[in-house]
């Protein structure tokens, strides 16, 4: 069966930079896999997500999602990808209500010249309810706390009903209660919808039992791609703090 995501010797270089942000990355993800990507700062984790999403032009190699080349078919494929970026904070005066932002997640699917209908509104409201932010629907985004904005962004990605979910540090601003609840909830939605999910995180312990694989990155390369048990072993060898330094 064709993998959902396949990266073949992919290198991505930012404009004006000499060193690729990720280099010779090979990665394959099948349907319903939930993969963690961990690594230190500037390891290339965010670049990996944006490369898969086709938001960055690749320098070398090929990115195939659903068997389609993201460099040429990215615009169509992105309608099936829910993405939560690392930087999502908006200015205090931002004139957008939270519900507007969640509804935007469906715009690509709706298509040009069509307006969101009742069903779209229901999907957006349901995603907000799932993230426990439905009571904030009419509040301006700029007036929400960092954690609330993060939940709204996750709701935006889920409202799309994506087949692939790419989350970049999605729990970083959440309060302790939500940090416990949201990862389990995402794992449940992932299972129910048979999605393929990649979560970039610094906190390797969180939700480790829920994922099927852990990809360890360092200096733009994948240095380990293991199941959770082996990843835990690597963690233990590295005293649980810097697994990328002892990865095989």
């Amino acid at each position, binding site marked *: 069966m064709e993998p959902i995501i396949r990266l073949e010797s992919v290198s991505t270089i930012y404009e004006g930079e000499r060193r690729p942000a990720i280099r010779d990355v090979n990665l394959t993800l099948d349907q319903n896999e939930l993969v963690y990507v961990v690594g230190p700062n500037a390891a290339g984790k965010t670049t990996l997500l944006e490369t898969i999403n086709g*938001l960055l032009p690749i320098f070398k190699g090929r990115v195939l999602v659903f068997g389609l080349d993201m460099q040429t078919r990215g615009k169509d494929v*992105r309608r099936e990808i829910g993405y939560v970026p690392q930087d999502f904070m908006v200015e205090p005066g931002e*004139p957008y*209500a939270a519900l507007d932002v969640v509804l*935007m997640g469906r*715009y690509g699917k709706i298509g040009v010249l069509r307006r969101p209908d009742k069903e779209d509104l229901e999907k957006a409201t349901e995603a907000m309810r799932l993230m426990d932010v439905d009571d904030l629907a009419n509040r301006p985004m700029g007036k929400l706390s960092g954690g609330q904005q993060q939940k709204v962004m996750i709701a935006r990605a889920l409202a799309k009903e994506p087949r692939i979910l790419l989350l970049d540090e999605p729990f970083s601003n959440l309060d302790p209660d939500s940090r416990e609840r949201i990862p389990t909830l995402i794992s449940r939605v992932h299972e129910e919808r048979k999605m393929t999910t990649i979560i970039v995180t610094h906190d390797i312990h969180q939700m480790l039992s829920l994922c099927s694989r852990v990809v360890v990155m360092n200096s733009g390369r994948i240095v380990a791609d293991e199941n959770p048990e082996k990843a835990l072993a690597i963690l233990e060898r590295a005293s649980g703090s810097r697994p990328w330094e002892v990865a095989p």
Partner: protein
Amino acid sequence: MIWLELAIIQRALVGCLLAGFLTGLIGVFVVRMRLSAIGYSMSHGAFAGAALGVAVSVNPLFTAMSFSAATALLIGPVADKARLHADTVTSIAFPLNMALVFIFLTLSPQIGLSSEVASVLWGSVISMTNNDMVYLTTLCAAALALIHFFWKELFAIMYDRKMAEADGINTKPFVYFIIFLVGLVVTLSLKLVGGLLIFALLFNPASSALQFLHDMKKIVIVSPAIGSVTCVSGLMLSLVLDLPIGSCIVLVSTFIFALSVLLSPKRKRKEVKQ
């Protein structure tokens, strides 16, 4: 004679309403999409074109339109194709256009500071013709219709272009559309406000509306209204004080912006309840 003057003022009044409405409307997209430098460059592109028209005795509207289109192409698709940042291109296009303005005006010393040159520089009440009214009305209708049809995409791009792209919206055509619309609006409003000051009308009404409102849909309605009020008030001030209309419009719009900053509820500190 009185009827003639009345007709001129009537045309200027309608021109002000339409130009203010258009610049206020398109200004929301310019400000929210962070295209301010582009708006600035486009206005001076149109200005250079109009100066060329004056110098070679061709209708300045057509030359201004050509220069606007060329600048829009340069800032939009050409910059993307050449993988140049829009800021780089606008930083080069702005002084180039200003240099061309001075060259074109210097090369035609017989014209000097005639009324035509003056209208291109800082706007003129008497320069508006019936044809200009028709162009402005048509552009108003076309801009409103297109914004209505593509509101969903523009709304998302104004929030965050990268996220709109991530949601599967092809953002480039919409950004190019706004850049070209800026060119058209600037060109058709140039005669009234003048090339040196037109960009103020692109930013001030939208920035003033943003000080008060938390709803983008309301901002898109209020900003054109502020633009129209600004232009009409500027026209009145110009007639009363016998000053250039462009300068008066900019004075009024700056005053409205300053007032909106002072009164902005968004800037007021929350009172701590005891």
